[in-house]
């Protein structure tokens, strides 16, 4: 049995917030694939859980009139990768979350839980960084939005007060229209393994040879997911060449700050940063309609 001392189920967002306000020590649970593991491993005790598992309004993908894509925080990974809006407009996000765990984990784990736990290896995070995703957060005082890059405050720390709930993720059309993307997850094994490094590139092409816009985001290359803004600046406007690819890898290296962990050494991660950035760039350029 899980070490749970109290369990409450919210039927809507407002109720969940009320419950959080009334219970300063409570923990939200959505899919539970992080919370229940923590409880099982004894990293959390006497949990007072507030479940948002069954809240329908938190689950689903839709598009606003202006083309903004809205992903409910409680949408499972498999619902995201199978959704037609994702497949048509932001396929790279679907590909990234399709690499989380195995199928049963993708059926239970949610994108909201994936970013709210604040880990740098979250497979959805780097792609959301590349899309400049905006997060909608609701609390007792109302709704606020924050850019994903400002949401991550440090390892395991996000910009979320105890009484607040991440409700949705927004991706505006200027951040996805015309872009081709590619996500690469490097892990020791293909399935059921946390990323040693995650790397996503987005590319917009002018004509067929020139880079109109370029974005590069990495997971596990620093304490939190990150964008390589300096690399992006140097590549923008350039013509695609083999030298340019080399430049992506070399410049990205100067921006990252990976750690040694039991999974991999810093040196190995640096090697991955250089190599995967190049590969992701090459493929994203192709996916955006570019030709070598």
């Amino acid at each position, binding site marked *: *049995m*899980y*070490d*749970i001392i*109290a*369990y409450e*189920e919210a039927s809507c967002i407002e109720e969940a917030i009320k419950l959080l306000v009334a219970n300063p020590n409570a923990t939200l*649970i959505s899919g*539970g*694939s992080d919370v*229940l*593991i923590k409880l*099982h*491993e004894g990293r959390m005790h006497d949990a007072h859980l507030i*479940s948002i*598992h*069954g809240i329908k309004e938190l689950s689903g993908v839709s598009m606003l009139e202006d083309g903004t894509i809205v992903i409910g925080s409680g949408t499972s990974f*498999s619902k995201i990768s199978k959704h037609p809006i994702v497949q048509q407009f932001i396929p790279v996000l679907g590909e990234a979350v399709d690499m989380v*765990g*195995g*199928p*049963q*984990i993708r*059926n*239970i784990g949610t994108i909201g839980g994936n970013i709210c736990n604040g880990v740098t290896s979250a497979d959805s995070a780097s792609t959301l960084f590349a899309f400049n995703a905006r997060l909608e957060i609701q609390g007792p005082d109302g709704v606020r939005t924050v850019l994903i890059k400002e949401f991550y405050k440090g390892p395991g720390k996000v910009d979320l007060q105890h009484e607040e709930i991440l409700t949705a993720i927004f991706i505006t059309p200027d951040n996805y229209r015309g872009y081709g993307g590619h996500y690469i997850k490097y892990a020791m094994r*293909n*399935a*059921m393994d946390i990323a040693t490094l995650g790397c996503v590139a987005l590319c917009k092409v002018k004509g067929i040879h020139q880079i109109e816009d370029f974005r590069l985001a990495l997971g596990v290359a620093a304490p939190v997911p990150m964008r390589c803004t300096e690399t992006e600046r140097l590549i923008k406007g350039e013509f695609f060449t083999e030298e340019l690819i080399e430049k992506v890898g070399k410049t990205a290296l100067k921006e990252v700050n990976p750690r040694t962990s039991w999974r991999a050494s810093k040196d190995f991660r640096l090697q991955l940063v250089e190599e995967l950035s190049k590969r992701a760039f090459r493929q994203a350029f192709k996916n955006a309609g570019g030709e070598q």
Partner: protein
Amino acid sequence: MQLKKITFKINSKEITIEVDVRESLLDVLRNKLHMTGVKKGCSVGECGACTVLIDNVAFDTCIYLAVWADGKEIRTIEGEAKEGKLSKVQQSFLDEAAVQCGFCTPGFVMSTTEMLESGKVFSKEQIKKELSGHMCRCTGYHNIMLAAEKALQPANKHGSECHGKCHK
């Protein structure tokens, strides 16, 4: 102790029971409903031995709170054989000798059943990916792959009379 009354369908039969909020669905299925075909391997979502179908989608029941089952439809290995006749997937596992100790088998069967009922065609690579949430410590996976491939083959091309003697 906090109890909650929930109602759900288990293998087509509706039941109402009181569960402890601390219980996983896995523990309720095994300890209270005696569905011991649902295996407890790792308890942390890594081995897939506890897989059942919830509203026809595969879930690890070890990381699924029992209270969440309220209103759901659950299928376990116990309900797959109908009137003494094995399901197509069970029969394929038998035909291909995809079982050694059998601990992982119910989980594999349930995931393969979800695939079969999706009506989609799966390549070998896709089958591997769809079964990647399961671990088996004895068969070496080869026969499991053959069984899944067999079960997922369109019936007209490869009828059930084959009994696994041909692997084409």
